[in-house]
């Protein structure tokens, strides 16, 4: 079942120039109930009708009843979210999305572009728990935007960093890692559309699963606003059939 609950914010901390980490206490036991790739729709409890629509964020981590999100402040909704103080409540609709990442492959590469990395961390944890191998590749424009680096290094052994300007890690794009990989089966990716597009066009020989973003009004399948084109030229809902699709399912 999908739940709509008001929950207290435990922490809401600035962890980079523009990035926040938010922890929520759902008060429920969520262990095993959230699938990697699933997301939530959030708003503050302010009764104002502006902004109206909830914002979508990946569920980046789950521990007991605690949910962790990472978000970039980009506009009105995320600005308002960044002002919420610990102890205050927010409204969340979750868990959303039926298209999730597979957990059964042995050799996995997780490629995250910018804040898209938040869509892969729960996956990495679950894969590791199952004894599968995880290589994490994290790319950003510049060093100051690598706000999830610490969190990643705490969780995973095998972390590669790329920056477009070379200010940290290797210079280049996260997808550059493809030429160096041997013995890997699967790529799981989340990030900006240009990154997903280049993966889409060059990731031959791998199975590729990608998590997409799209403007969403409902998040639960009824507005038909969030669609992406499928291989048979019909439309799939990112919020319902996705947000994770195998490369072969969609056209981007």
């Amino acid at each position: 079942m999908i739940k709509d609950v008001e929950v207290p914010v435990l922490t809401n901390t600035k962890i980079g120039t523009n990035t926040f980490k938010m922890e929520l206490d759902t008060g429920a036991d969520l262990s095993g109930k959230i699938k990697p790739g699933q997301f939530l729709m959030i708003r503050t409890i302010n009764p104002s009708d502006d902004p109206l629509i909830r914002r979508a964020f990946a569920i980046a981590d789950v521990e007991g009843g605690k949910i962790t999100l990472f978000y970039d402040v980009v506009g009105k909704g995320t600005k308002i979210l960044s002002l919420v103080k610990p102890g205050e409540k927010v409204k969340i609709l979750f868990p959303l999305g039926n298209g999730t990442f597979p957990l059964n492959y042995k050799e996995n590469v997780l490629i995250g572009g910018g804040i898209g990395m938040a869509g892969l961390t729960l996956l990495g944890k679950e894969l590791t728990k199952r004894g599968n191998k995880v290589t994490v590749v994290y790319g950003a424009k510049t060093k100051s935007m690598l706000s999830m680096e610490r969190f990643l290094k705490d969780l995973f052994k095998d972390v590669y960093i790329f920056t477009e300007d070379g200010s940290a890690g290797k210079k280049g794009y996260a997808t550059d890692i493809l030429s160096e990989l041997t013995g890997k089966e699967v790529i799981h990716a989340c990030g900006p559309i240009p990154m997903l597009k280049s993966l889409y066009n060059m990731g031959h020989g791998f199975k590729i699963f990608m998590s997409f973003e799209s403007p969403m009004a409902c998040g639960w399948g009824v507005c038909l606003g969030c669609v992406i084109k499928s291989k048979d030229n019909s439309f799939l809902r990112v919020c319902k059939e996705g947000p994770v699709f195998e490369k072969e399912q969609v056209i981007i």
Partner: protein
Amino acid sequence: MEITLWNIKFKNPVWTASGTFGYGIEALELYDISKLGAVVTKGISLEPRRGNEPVRIVETPCGMLNSIGLQNPGVENFLKDIYPKIKDIDTHFIANIFGETEEEYVEVCLALEEAEKIVAYELNLSCPNVKKGGIVFGQDISLMSSLVEKVKAKVKKPVIVKLSPNVSDIREFSRVCVESGADGLVLINTLMGMKIDIYKAKPVLSTVTGGLSGPAILPVAVRMVWQAYETVGDRVPIIGVGGIGKWEDAMEHIMAGASAVQVGTANFYDPFSPLKIIEGIDRFIKERNITQFTHIVGMAHRKRLK
């Protein structure tokens, strides 16, 4: 809060609006939808429609614009794949119907005549008539009138007509619609609007314009329900839709003359809002010792006369 319209008993006067609740199936993951007075389906056409290219939605102040393009599987697939999943749900369904010609509207209704769970047809007039140079049915009084007459002549179930607010005088459209045989009016569909991305210097929606919905349109909807009630309120029931997110908004529609209301965009940002609205109206009535829901329908008109 049971109400009776067209000899059909509805559990309550709170329904979900077309295109904002699918066919009710997704909502089963959220709550027991048999608590709703009725579910109005996503628009159904004769042939499947894939809908418009993205971008299809964008948020605006206290509202949103959409240009979904009436994506739907077509009436045949609806009956085959979707109807079996809803036919045992313990509330009424109203089929929202559209076509590009009069014949298509009639054919879709006829295809649904035997489907018992569907208790009425709601004609969506926001579609262009391809045989008449693409003029939108709901924006031309003679196209609307002819369509309503044709459908009414052929079908058994009640036919309610969802009017476009994008007309110069809603009273005239309401009157003609009822004189053409409509069993009820639904007001309002979305208002035409647009949004420009100033950094890209281009319209946000792929179709340039889209339909505005949400709290922003509440006052317009209430005004139109009010005017329709003044014009035809003594002849047919009026169903209010537009900007309803809370029970107070629903109450405005009802006092303006709505016999029932539909919740649309609020399903997106507050999925449990229909249930909260049912509770709110119920509480309001009980607190004031109003014995029957119908006593508050159009109440603001009567107070005004005094």
